[in-house]
């Protein structure tokens, strides 16, 4: 993939031009060229960084964040047969869910889109996830990171319970935990034993990317 094509892909995504994005990635997918596919992923990730910045600065709104994430997801689906070649490591696996008692899912889903587009395999446990279900998924998938979303103050007490259970099962040490959502603050998150708080999906993705690359 040439620099020009990468730029075209990035621009199409930033124009929310789904047809334009899919045209470029479909052409890349038909070549089955792993290097080209990786460059396409790089272009998509670059565009999403810009999306995130625009969102953080209030220039773009949630619908644009969601829709760009959806376009990126579809683009990644087209590229995944090449990228999933067994010989190629992905960024790793992340388990994500919204804590027990909380059914808010928009923020979690946006984070999932961004993480998927950054090359992570994401196991989505959904909403209202019990302590046991979080632990079970961690034991089963051995993820790089566990992500917990929480928007309700009454549900926030569930986060230390999840962390405590992971400690008791002996898997906390080998795992990074990231939390996010409107009910949380960085102070609370660190106090209850999470490794990081993500104020938004882009920052969250940057954090898990740094963890994955630091491994």
């Amino acid at each position: 993939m040439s620099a020009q094509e990468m730029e075209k892909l990035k621009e199409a995504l930033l124009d929310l031009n789904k047809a334009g994005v899919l045209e470029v990635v479909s052409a890349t997918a038909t070549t089955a060229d792993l290097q080209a596919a990786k460059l396409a992923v790089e272009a998509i990730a670059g565009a999403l960084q810009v999306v995130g910045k625009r969102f953080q600065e209030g220039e773009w709104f949630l619908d644009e964040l969601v829709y760009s994430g959806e376009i990126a997801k579809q683009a990644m689906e087209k590229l995944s047969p090449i990228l999933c070649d067994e010989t190629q490591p992905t960024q790793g696996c992340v388990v994500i869910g919204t804590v027990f008692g909380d059914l808010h899912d928009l923020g979690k889903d946006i984070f999932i889109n961004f993480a998927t587009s950054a090359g992570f395999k994401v196991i989505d446990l959904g909403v209202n996830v019990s302590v046991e279900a979080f632990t079970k998924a961690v034991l089963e998938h051995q993820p790089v990171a566990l992500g917990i979303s929480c928007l309700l103050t009454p549900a926030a007490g569930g986060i230390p319970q999840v962390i405590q259970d992971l400690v008791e099962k002996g898997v906390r040490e080998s795992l990074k935990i990231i939390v996010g959502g409107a009910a949380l603050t960085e102070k609370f998150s660190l106090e209850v034993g999470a490794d990081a708080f993500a104020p938004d999906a882009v920052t969250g993705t940057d954090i898990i990317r740094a963890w994955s690359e630091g491994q």
Partner: protein
Amino acid sequence: MNFKERILTTLNHEEPDQIPVMGLIMDPSTVSQVTGKSATNIVNFLDKPVLGKVAKGLVNTNWFWNRMYYGNFALAMESSIQLGFDANWSIYALMKLYEDPASTLGTAMHDAYGRVWEMGTNDRGDLSVDYSRALCPTEAEWEAWVDAKAPLFDQLVKNATGFHKKLADKYSHRIMPIGYAAPGIFENSWQAIGFVNFTKLVYENPEFVKRVVAFQTDLYLRYLEGVMDSGVEVVLGGDDLGQKTGPLMRPALIDKFFGESYRRVAELVHSRGRKFIFHSCGKIYQFLDMFIDWGFDGIITMEPTADMDLARVREQVGHKLALVGNLDVSHLLVRGSHKEVDQAVRDAIRAAGPGGGYILSAAHSHPYVDATRLQWMVEAAHEHGRYPLQG
């Protein structure tokens, strides 16, 4: 002045005798704290082999549903009166129980609009029923749903009218019932489809979205007529247009798809001589001028954790909108100290009280909003909210 005069005077942007206080009481948890009575917890029954079957059958009958629903809200009204509120909101919903393997209990409520509501009990054993998923993610599913549910929509309007009337008849001499027509047009449009799908459709199939909005607008106007037929004098409409850091959707898009509908809502309410207050969570500064333009009389929520500052809102809208709410439900009304609650009430009154046009209330309700803190809030309003306001 009695509670009703107090509310109506302030909504006309005149100074009443004292700052009115409104309750957003509906959660069984808060109600049981105040009254000592637990609301009917059908989740407990559903698990039992024989009783469960009977309970499921009963809940799906119109008379039992209405009876149970009214019973819960009557307790909420009693609690509000006991706590000393001048007004409390009342909301009606029509749902049916279905076997639903995708839900945590294997059984969930489906509402008339196409939402799934998960049932549960919190750690205090109180019932919770919350929106969890959409039943009509595609255009075809949505069309099929609204075709099939026509009789349910009629039932919904009829039941809601009866519900609000019964509450108004029973309680309006002791407290002002504020008829909450919720969820609103935006939420009824997206929540049956899901936010992500709805957003995709806004970009990829705007004609369908317009059809959905037109359908929901007509239904909502009928619903509003019903709420007003009950005799309530102030109507709330509910749509969350914001999230913690800003609008849920680009304001220009909201205006394009929903602006005309909101204008019709305000016109209808005004044609019946009533006031229309709009509930929206989140950071919504960018919608305030639109609210004025669409004809709304006031807004409720102004969530402090989403950076909504009462003084800033008042400065932006002047007395073109009445303001209701702003007391934090993340910390203050959950575990704040008496001093903190007192100070927050004083700050709110100082920011929005002068000239009337402010009703003190919590920013929202949830099961952990603490009745004692609500009581402190009312007491502080009585202590610091007498007009003419001091300093």
